[in-house]
């Protein structure tokens, strides 16, 4: 039983390790991500401080310090960052499908979906360690972000971040699977980035979205990516709201994973590859 479990898990650990090592080989990309994320955080901070100082509505919702904390934290954990994840992993998978090289993936004794998740987990871990953590330290030192609202909020922030990664992987996977049926997924991928930034909370706190957009955002999974973890970190969720937010996040993670499995089950028998 244990041996069977180990043999079924080991290939994905291998995929995780191989992808993590490739991230290390391409660490320059992540270093540039640090610089870019830092500059975007500074710009967004200036923008929202200017808006905050001129708007009573925003002042009612946030103090200036809370506003800065939200904006900076949302850039630190921005899963829509145009970095390694989007380009090499998602586009790489889509390119293999478009060119027929996916045939090699299909003959491997690994589940296609789990292999993709293992790759994205490696990139996410690397991004969190090499981009997110140093940025958090820098912004914490300059006082732009506080510590988590409480130790419990800190732990639940990590739990929420794990769910955010699962939701992100679910969305990535759906886009990759669409590549089996569409010749042009570049636009879909970019629309996903824009939707994720506006409705996910990395450009604007969802609480400040106008009524119609707020209603749309609340029924889409993007809120689970940035808004929920940052809101938990800042201690804005507590009690039943906190439990509900985590439940919604993990619910989306499960739903997207199942949707990916079902779509794959539909697409897989129809895949015809003449060569790679």
């Amino acid at each position: 039983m244990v041996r069977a479990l180990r043999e079924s898990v080991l290939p994905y650990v291998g995929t995780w390790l191989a992808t993590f090592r490739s991230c290390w080989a391409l660490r320059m990309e992540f270093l540039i991500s640090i610089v870019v994320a830092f500059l975007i955080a500074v710009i967004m901070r200036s923008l929202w401080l200017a808006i905050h100082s001129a708007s009573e509505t925003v002042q009612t919702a946030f103090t200036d310090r809370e506003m800065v904390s939200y904006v900076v934290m949302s850039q630190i954990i921005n899963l829509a960052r145009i970095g390694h994840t989007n380009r090499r992993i998602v586009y790489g998978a889509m390119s293999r499908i478009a060119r027929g090289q996916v045939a090699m993936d299909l003959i491997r004794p690994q589940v296609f979906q789990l292999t993709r998740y293992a790759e994205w987990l490696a990139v996410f871990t690397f991004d969190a360690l090499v981009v997110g953590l140093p940025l958090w330290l820098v912004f914490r030192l300059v006082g732009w972000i506080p510590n988590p609202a409480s130790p419990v909020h800190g732990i639940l922030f990590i739990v929420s971040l794990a769910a955010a990664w699962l939701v992100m992987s679910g969305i990535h996977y759906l886009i990759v699977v669409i590549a089996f049926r569409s010749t042009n997924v570049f636009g879909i991928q970019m629309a996903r980035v824009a939707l994720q930034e506006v409705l996910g909370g990395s450009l604007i706190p969802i609480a400040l979205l106008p009524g119609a957009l707020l209603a749309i955002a609340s029924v889409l999974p993007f809120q689970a990516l940035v808004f929920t973890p940052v809101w938990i970190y800042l201690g804005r969720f507590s009690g039943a709201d906190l439990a509900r937010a985590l439940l919604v996040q993990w619910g989306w993670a499960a739903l997207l994973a199942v949707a990916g499995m079902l779509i794959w089950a539909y697409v897989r028998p129809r895949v015809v590859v003449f060569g790679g």
Partner: protein
Amino acid sequence: MNIPAIVRLYLHGVLTQIKVPAQYRGDTWVAIVSILIWRGLRVGFIGIAFSFIADLGGWTVWEVVLMWANSLFAEFLVNSVAAFVSQADLYFYQGRMDYARIRPVPVMVFASVEQMRPEFLLSAIFFAIVGAVASINLGLFSSPLSIVLLGLAVASAALLWFGIMLFMSSGAAWLSRARVLKFGVWSFDEHAKYPLDILPFPLQVGLTVIPYAFTSYYPISLALRPETHIWPGILSLPVGLAVAAISLFMYGKASSHYDSLGSADPT
């Protein structure tokens, strides 16, 4: 060099690049809707931000929209009609230059056709419309001076994007890391189009030196408020020409530096 023949081949190639994906009707509509969402949300974000305030550091919503539209229209126009400038690294780094050099047109022309993406052309059209709407709302089409200054703003931004992208991608002839830097530049520039006045001074200096601010803030503030914002808006065109000239020099050096034992798979 037979210029009319090159122009004819270029136009023929571009039309083919548009026609081929258009054969997939469903995908074409998906692409159009995706671009509307992608680009619409960018402009929509400015609208949301301005729903809380009357002005941003003294700039109205249409003025900020025009700054964005000017830079993004120029960027996508260059990326669609001269796509080579942002993709030169593929030719230097992956050895595709071998394949491009045997074509009966200059490398830049062939590669611009090969790399042309209809999505970018659609994005350029989108921002041309957004820019035109903003200009009408700001009354910029009512005075000849404003029209001339607006034209200069578009020309400056196009020259600057041509220069910035070609400079970055030509660097791949020496440094494979230049490709990485290119993506960094691309992901940052979308956020570097707000009025410079609201940013901290070091960032104002940085965006002037890089020189993103010359693609949006400086030339547009000159077109909007020539009486108070002459400098450095008036320098936008010379700066654009200088950056384009430097990048062409860099491209020439990269071309002569290029050496290869064979090409990569051009597909």
